């Protein structure tokens, strides 16, 4: 009893002293219990994959193969000719069945290469090499050839992100916040592969030529904090890496909020993290960097959380890039009769889809199968001017006014409320008691207003 109360007091104190961003934020239900304790499971190889030629921020790749070509797992089958982008690889060994279009959760449809897997093909083995003697250029080249992009969702090509202007960056932050409800991918990766992630951090620090790295992890993942702390302690000789437990508050994992929480620096509006000397990398990306450098392994697979009450068996599944969600759902026992909404990504910022015919891409972190009780189906009402959204907005904007102006058709005038600083975290719409579709209003305003 006595010890329990000391423990409680200690936890309370820790909670108060945890680092976090200052302004706004909300506490949505976490709903991570469905998958947080499930070890990463490898799905048997699918018979077909659809490799999208646009899985990143930038230009669409050009197909480098023809129909009926034989391809090996790891072959580059698409690359950008010029401009920003990242190459794509065959994620299985087999034959090119078609070059056409595939359903994309956001962009309706994009060009893709369909590969029929050769069931007889042997599993590809990746051999490890010592990376310590490699030059910065070679390290970056391996990352580029592996087609690595930011796996948190934005899909910015990693080799470009890791080449900031000389001398601009002094700090690396690894984003292990995973503040979106339901998602447990980064959590499981940190618990199961802490050493690989620390090795990845060392590779990134070497490329950047700096020593200081932080791993920010929300305090609702104590096992991940423990495993990462141990791995950092045992393996980070020569570098200054520390694990930073963060307060559980959404959107802790947003780049600007994370940088403020960890370093106290504020990225200016329309600026980039390196404007304040920081680069942020996602946990999954860091692991992929490790694999690309140490094993010469390109991005051919991805761990994805499948969760929600609408799927028979929730899981943290390692799947090949290009695997169709429909096939994964079959593997997981199908959907439940109560399924009402399918969301790609987290429930706060993810996209609702109307079909399961789309493939997994490098940036898919989760697919949620939500039932009526898990989602909102409220009708929206007029703004009652309660001001909840002003308290919730982490950017200090005025979502209430933006919504009212959009309804009145005054789209151009919404810039005075900072509409372009909005990164659509959804805090405002979450807290709105009138259930107003504020993110939707803001997107409409962004389409019409001039920056």
């Amino acid at each position, binding site marked *: 009893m006595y010890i329990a109360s000391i423990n409680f007091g200690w936890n309370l104190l820790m909670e108060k002293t945890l680092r976090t961003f200052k302004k706004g934020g909300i506490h949505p239900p976490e709903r991570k219990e469905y998958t947080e304790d499930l070890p990463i499971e490898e799905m048997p190889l699918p018979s077909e994959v659809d490799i999208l030629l646009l899985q990143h921020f930038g230009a669409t790749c050009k197909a480098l193969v023809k129909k009926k070509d034989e391809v090996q797992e790891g072959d580059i089958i698409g690359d950008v000719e010029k401009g920003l982008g990242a190459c794509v690889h065959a994620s299985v060994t087999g034959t090119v069945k078609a070059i056409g279009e595939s359903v994309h959760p956001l962009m309706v449809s994009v060009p893709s290469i369909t590969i029929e897997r050769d069931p007889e093909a042997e599993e590809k083995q990746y051999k490890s090499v010592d990376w310590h003697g490699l030059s910065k250029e070679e390290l970056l080249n391996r990352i580029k050839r592996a087609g690595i992009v930011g796996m948190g969702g934005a899909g910015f090509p990693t080799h470009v992100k890791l080449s900031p202007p000389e001398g601009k960056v002094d700090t690396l932050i690894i984003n292990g916040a995973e503040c979106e409800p339901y998602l447990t991918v980064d959590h499981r990766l940190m618990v199961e592969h802490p050493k690989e992630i620390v090795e990845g951090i060392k590779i990134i620090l070497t490329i950047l030529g700096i020593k200081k790295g932080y791993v920010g992890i929300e305090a609702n993942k104590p096992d991940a904090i423990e495993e990462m702390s141990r791995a950092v302690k045992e393996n980070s000789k020569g570098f200054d890496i520390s694990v930073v437990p963060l307060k559980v508050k959404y959107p802790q994992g947003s780049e600007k909020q994370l940088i403020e929480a960890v370093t106290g620096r504020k990225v*200016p509006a329309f600026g980039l993290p390196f404007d304040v000397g920081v680069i942020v990398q996602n946990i999954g990306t860091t692991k992929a960097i490790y694999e690309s450098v140490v094993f010469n392994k390109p991005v051919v697979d991805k761990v994805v959380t499948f969760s929600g009450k609408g799927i028979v068996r929730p899981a943290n599944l390692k799947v090949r890039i290009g695997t169709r969600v429909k096939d994964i759902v079959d593997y997981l026992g199908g959907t439940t009769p109560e399924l009402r909404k399918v969301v790609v990504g987290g*429930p*706060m910022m993810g996209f609702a*889809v109307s079909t399961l015919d789309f493939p997994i891409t490098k940036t898919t972190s989760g697919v949620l199968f939500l039932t009526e009780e898990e989602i909102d189906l409220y009708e929206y009402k007029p703004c*009652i001017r309660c001001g909840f959204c002003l308290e919730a907005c982490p*950017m*200090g*904007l005025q979502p209430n006014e933006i919504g009212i102006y959009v309804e009145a058709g005054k789209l151009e005038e919404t810039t005075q409320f900072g509409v372009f600083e909005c990164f659509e975290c959804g805090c405002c719409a979450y807290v709105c*008691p009138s259930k107003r579709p504020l993110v939707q209003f803001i997107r409409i305003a962004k389409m019409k207003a001039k920056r």
Partner: protein
Amino acid sequence: MEKTTTFENHLLTVSVSPHIKSPVTVEKIMWTVVACLIPPLIMATAIFGIRVLIITLISVISCVLTEAISEKALGRPITIKDGSAVITGILLAYVIPPGVPYYLPILGAVMAIFVTKHLFGGLGANIFNPALIGRAFLMATFPVAMTSAWIVPKYLKHSADALSSATPLFIVKHYGIQALIQKYGSLSYIYKNFFVGIRPGCIGETSAFLLLLGGLYLIYKGYIKWYIPVSMIGTIAFLTWIFGGEHLFEGNPLVAILSGGVMLGAFFMATDYATSPNYKTGQLIYGAGIGALTVLIRLKGGYPEGVCYAILLMNGFTPALDSWFKPERFAPPKGEKK
């Protein structure tokens, strides 16, 4: 703005993120406020008799009916279930004396709901607090009833005379605080009775304790913030202490905040979402403004009590306060105001 599409046997909903929303709805907030306003009504019925319950019921029914008719007439969706008109009805009854004729709240309700709320655009769009405009209208049209229909509360032991049913603020204004102490016997007896709610006054304003309880619950739930009540009550106490006595710094702040409509106004009227500023800086100034105007009216004005007009005057300031005191931007672009 949702679309449904079929996928095998499922009807899938497709809408813009976020896909989960807080369980707090307008209805939930409004009905919680109604629940917080019930204990003072029970107290009022106990001390003033069953007629205050009837007045409150008439007021609520008139407000709900006026809301339905106004919405029908103006072609708006009927929203009487959201609890907003019920709150206005309760508050309107709470700010009129217990002895008024039964038809008074009906007239007040029409003024509050039709004119003040719906002619200005309906829920969330009104500039002035509907219940207080209702009271101000009744003050102007039925001044005698509104300033003399007091009832001596049961359980109150004080000297019986011509001032028995007069409100404490009336006595303080015209005869001074010593007269009040004399009448009630002692200051501690005043504090005790005013805190519990056994004193003459408007129907719902007497029990500081029950109003405080309801207000604190709303703050605990996050439905209202502490900024307005604290700055309003604090300003009244502070300014009364300075200017409320015969000499400077001799006023009694506790009697000032326990009498009149301070508690009811601070927690349930000044905090009205539509008519108060949206953000904390504006709310602090707004609360302080109400406090200062209340003390000014009490000490210098023609009425013993000033909370109603103070709130209405500051309602008019709300749009200005909102445009002057905006949230601090995270890190605005260079050259733009924070």
